[in-house]
């Protein structure tokens, strides 16, 4: 089992509700700010984008990189976090 961060575990443990986008694993202050500027101010909006991209990893990673400049690790964290959340709650 791959290792996950505390943030990831916290996010996946419960429905995201109104959590801010910075609650996503891999998204910290800087990236979160950028996403918010683009209009992705809540985690569920990013989730929406993730679902629109049909949960495809590469597409989502590319999108994330283009939108907020996430590096490979951050992309991976965010993708993994959302994917696991979807597996648990969708």
């Amino acid at each position, binding site marked *: 089992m791959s290792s996950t961060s505390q943030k990831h*575990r916290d996010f996946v*443990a419960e429905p995201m509700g109104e959590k801010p986008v910075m609650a996503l694993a891999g998204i910290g202050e800087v990236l979160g700010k950028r996403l918010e500027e683009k209009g992705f101010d809540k985690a569920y909006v990013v989730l929406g984008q993730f679902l629109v*991209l049909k*949960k495809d990893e590469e597409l989502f990673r590319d999108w994330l990189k283009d939108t907020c400049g996430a590096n490979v*690790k951050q992309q991976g964290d965010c993708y993994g976090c959302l994917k696991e959340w979807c597996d648990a709650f969708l």
Partner: protein
Amino acid sequence: MASTQLTDEELFSELKSFGFTPGPVTENTRPVYLKKLKKLREEQQQRGSRAGKTRSSGAIHSTTGGGNTAGSRPASHDVTHLSSSRRPGRKPSVLGFSSDESDAETPLKRKGLNHSSRVDRNSGFPQQLKIRPVTTPTVATKSPYGATSTVNSNNSSPGPGGQRSVSLGWGVRARSSPEAEGRDCDESGEEDDDYEGGTEKNSRSLNGCGASHLNTSKLAGDYSDSDEEEVGGLGAGDKPRDRLEPRRSHPKAEFPSHVVGRGSQTGGAARQVNPPESLNMVGGRRQEGEEDEVKRRDSDLSGVFRSHNFPRKSIYVSLAENHGGEAGKNNHVDGEDGASRSSSTSRFAIGLRPRFSNYSSLSQTYRGNHSNHTAPSPNHSYSQAVLKQKLSVPEDELLQQFKREEVASSGSFSAHYLSMFLLTAACLFFLLLGLMYLRMRGTGSSEVDGVSKYPTREKAEKDLILKLLLNLHDHLAHVAGTCVSFVQAQNEEFKDLILTSLEWIIRTGQDVGIRLTGHVADKPLTDVSEISQLESTHPKMPFVCRFRRAFLTVISRVFLIAAVVGCVWSGVCYMKYRWRREEEETRQMYDMVERIIDVLRSHSEACQENQDLQPYLPIPHVRDSLVQPQDRKKMKKIWERAERFLSANESRIRKETQRIGGADFLVWRWIQPSLSCDKTSLMPSKVWQGKAFPLDRRNSPPNSLTPCLKIRNMFDPVMEVGENWDLAIHEAILEKCNDNDGIVHIAVDKNSREGCVYVKCLSAEHSGRAFKALHGSWFDGKLVTVKYLRLDRYHQRFPQAQACSTPLKASASTPSTTNTTPRLQHRGAANSSGFS
């Protein structure tokens, strides 16, 4: 290909032509899909030119997999990340990642947990398992890595530093195993350098046997409330300990203490505690079978580490022991452990756990680690060296974790002794002050100097006068009162001089110890003839008399002050009591008003349906139906206030006089036409409404960890009305878990924004059942989540819960009695269907 000129549909169809099914092409996804298209085209060309899986392998994957390989990819990505992104540029990567993972507690765990990543890469590292006292080779090998590590930076001296680095590597081995399977391996490779060494073998061996339950430990760790109550690691760690240890109490006992000691070491120079104190503490707390080890440990510590490190370590050693002593009540996490392992070790572990929750996994891994190596070299020196090394090993990782704890603990100890010292010093000081004060009152004779200054007198006369005055002074001092012309009788010689001396006293104007008072008091004397009384200003009283006088004055003054303070304080208390009472009464009055309104409204609605009823209700009837007979007298005042309030402030109710059955009654009539929106605006009252998601392994811990739960999102404090809504919450919880007889304490945090409710159960099993029943359910339109809490924190917060041991039962009333309003009756059907 001018892909920028593609419309969405064209892009869509182009992508499809490559066999890839894209999602909707929106403005957000357009750039992504454009890139994808480009990649697909490139890859197509390359596929035509060569059949290699080079850069385009990713594209191939993407084309073929779509979302299918997504599942496997994160793992591989993580692994690659682990191996590739960690080593090079560790420091910059730390900075880069720190923006993401800004949790306060993650660095703590991460430091301890980083080393899992190291596992992969340490294949070439020399075996350190058997190396006990050797420092140089490991130092040499570690130096390229460890030069800039924080661990080494902490060790300012090369000797201990080398040892520490050795032990670091050693300890990391132990630690890496649980972390290998999946703790946080994101960040800060600060200690990574040191921990690379020798991790692989140990971790591998531990991994082999511990992988499964280490996994569970990880999961368990996830679901406890990470902010303050870190339970997961604790509970989880028990399992590996269970399997890995061959119950060696001797070295195991060392472990926690070393871990502790090391943690204490890193506290920083600021946290110094008196060495004698620590020694005393250590000496004061002994446990069976541990005495020798403790002594040895102490000697080791003193020998190995510097003085400023030693006190902390020994303190923590003793703390560990101390906490070991209280293991019984701290043993909630691993209830099954207590019997199974050697008492000392378990106590150590358990004792440590509440103190250093985050590193519990470390201690456990140490124990496991140690167990693996006890066979190879179970000798005393080994354990001793282990001690030294162990002590330094967890140091850095636990640095921040312990910072707070250490400050608290060392501060508390030093504060304890400091406060005692200050107290004794103050007492002594005051005692001295009192004695001095008493002495001052009784002594003093300075008139000798004054007399010697007396001008123009012959020596003999002067001596006589002096003698006279001294005599007089002494006598007056003894008598301490007024004395009239006693001296004259005393000595004939003095007779003629008495007048001159008195005259001189008047003239000299200074206080010679004798006060002259005339017939009229308080008038300055000018002439000898006016003198009628002599008084001593410095009475020489015996000590007892002095003491008594002083004591009495002090006591009387103290009483006076106390009486004044007491009056003021009682006045304040009374005011507060009155104020509270008034508030309570007002609240009750409003509650009553609301109930009356509801009754009247419902009655008017009933009247509309049933034309036989009168549209008004007699006031006494309303009162008697709302207020129980036994409360009528008590509520009389409130009822009257409510009545007055209604007539003054309520426009929908009219008071009139009606004749009912021949008698005149004051009645209330509801004159508002019923509004349909009234009913629809009713929120669902406190009922359970089903489950949102099934509880599976992923979103709930596999086993229940503690008997205490924290339930979130059960209410919104700003929206709550009524006086006993928290009781309604209690009832709701009990009713939801009515098959679970183990709930002993419920506390509703009325002020929390998140709507938190704290529940304590009889045992972890009960809490696990309650968790399953509550987590993820809908209540009152809100999704409820549950987390486990540590028992000691729960007790800290709710000390009254420590005594609770009787299971609570839901009251027998139906769930809709939270409000006495009839609107619930409308929803009765809906409620019953909503129960899960």
